[in-house]
């Protein structure tokens, strides 16, 4: 299809979508109104189950089965990304020996800030996971913080150090164990909000680390072959 024809089709479809969307939007309840039938039904349950953070209560207690599905999507796509990006044999041979990556040249201020922030960030991540039932936070958010925290080492210019503190097989095992534990918890003990937060935190953190590790491998390790 030519560019022109494609734009015409897009204009037609876009106008139709815009029209239908606007018609639907003006039939919605007023912005900021008090009509939230589903949300209101979740509140008494959350309070009855002693989970002050209603969002955690919904995710891991009232709709834990739904979260199980999301969790498996997360695991499946992280797994697929890792599989697709695996280095093939030719690249591995090429990568061996030829490219030694020492610490890069970065400003001392950046390096020191990176190392100083690392423990603080990991602490924050653990706090967010552990306090998920009480205050805003939980496994999903804390897992992302934990998973991205260790990449501060890369920001400090030291990729080999990052590779050392990030043993891939351990994170693969962590991901698998956490996924299994979450399935067991969601099916048998739904409502253990703190335990589920911890398991989800481990799983999300491992998924982030594994995916980023594969992308780092593709972008950095086998780079100078041309």
């Amino acid at each position: 299809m030519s560019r022109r024809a494609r734009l015409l089709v897009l204009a037609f479809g876009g106008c139709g979508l815009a029209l239908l969307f606007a018609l639907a939007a003006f039939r919605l309840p007023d912005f900021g109104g008090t009509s939230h039938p589903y949300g209101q039904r979740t509140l008494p349950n959350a309070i009855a189950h002693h989970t002050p953070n209603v969002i955690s209560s919904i995710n891991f207690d009232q709709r834990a089965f739904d979260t199980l599905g999301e969790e498996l999507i997360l695991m499946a796509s992280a797994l697929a990304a890792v599989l697709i990006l695996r280095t093939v044999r030719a690249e591995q041979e090429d990568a061996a020996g030829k490219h030694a990556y020492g610490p890069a040249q970065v400003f001392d201020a950046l390096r020191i800030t990176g190392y100083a922030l690392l423990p603080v960030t990991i602490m924050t991540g653990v706090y967010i996971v552990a306090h998920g039932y009480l205050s805003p936070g939980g496994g999903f958010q804390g897992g992302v913080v934990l998973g991205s925290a260790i990449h501060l080492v890369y920001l400090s210019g030291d990729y080999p150090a990052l590779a050392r503190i990030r043993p891939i097989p351990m994170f693969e095992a962590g991901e698998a164990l956490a996924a299994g534990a979450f399935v067991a918890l969601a099916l048998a003990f739904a409502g253990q909000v703190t335990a589920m937060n911890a398991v989800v935190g481990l799983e999300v953190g491992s998924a982030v680390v594994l995916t980023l590790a594969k992308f780092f491998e593709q972008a950095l390790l086998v780079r100078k072959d041309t």
Partner: protein
Amino acid sequence: MSDALIVAALLLTAFMATAVVLTRDPARQAIVLSGYGLVLAVLFVVLQAPDVAMSQTGVGTVVVPLIVMLAVHAIRRHHTREPDERDDS
């Protein structure tokens, strides 16, 4: 007052989303995307959703832009075929 704040945050979000789409170079787009993630997080805080804002900050400003940057880097390595001479407006 809070309504004005919400309208301002929503308009800023729409503006940044358009900016992300219109930035055609993926390496620059990663940076604009990071800014869009931050604006979205601010919008979520204004809409009284601290949990969502937290995960949006982590994902939208750090993880996704970093993955985009690394993907751009990895792709540049494999770029053998030059794009044909077509007007790229």
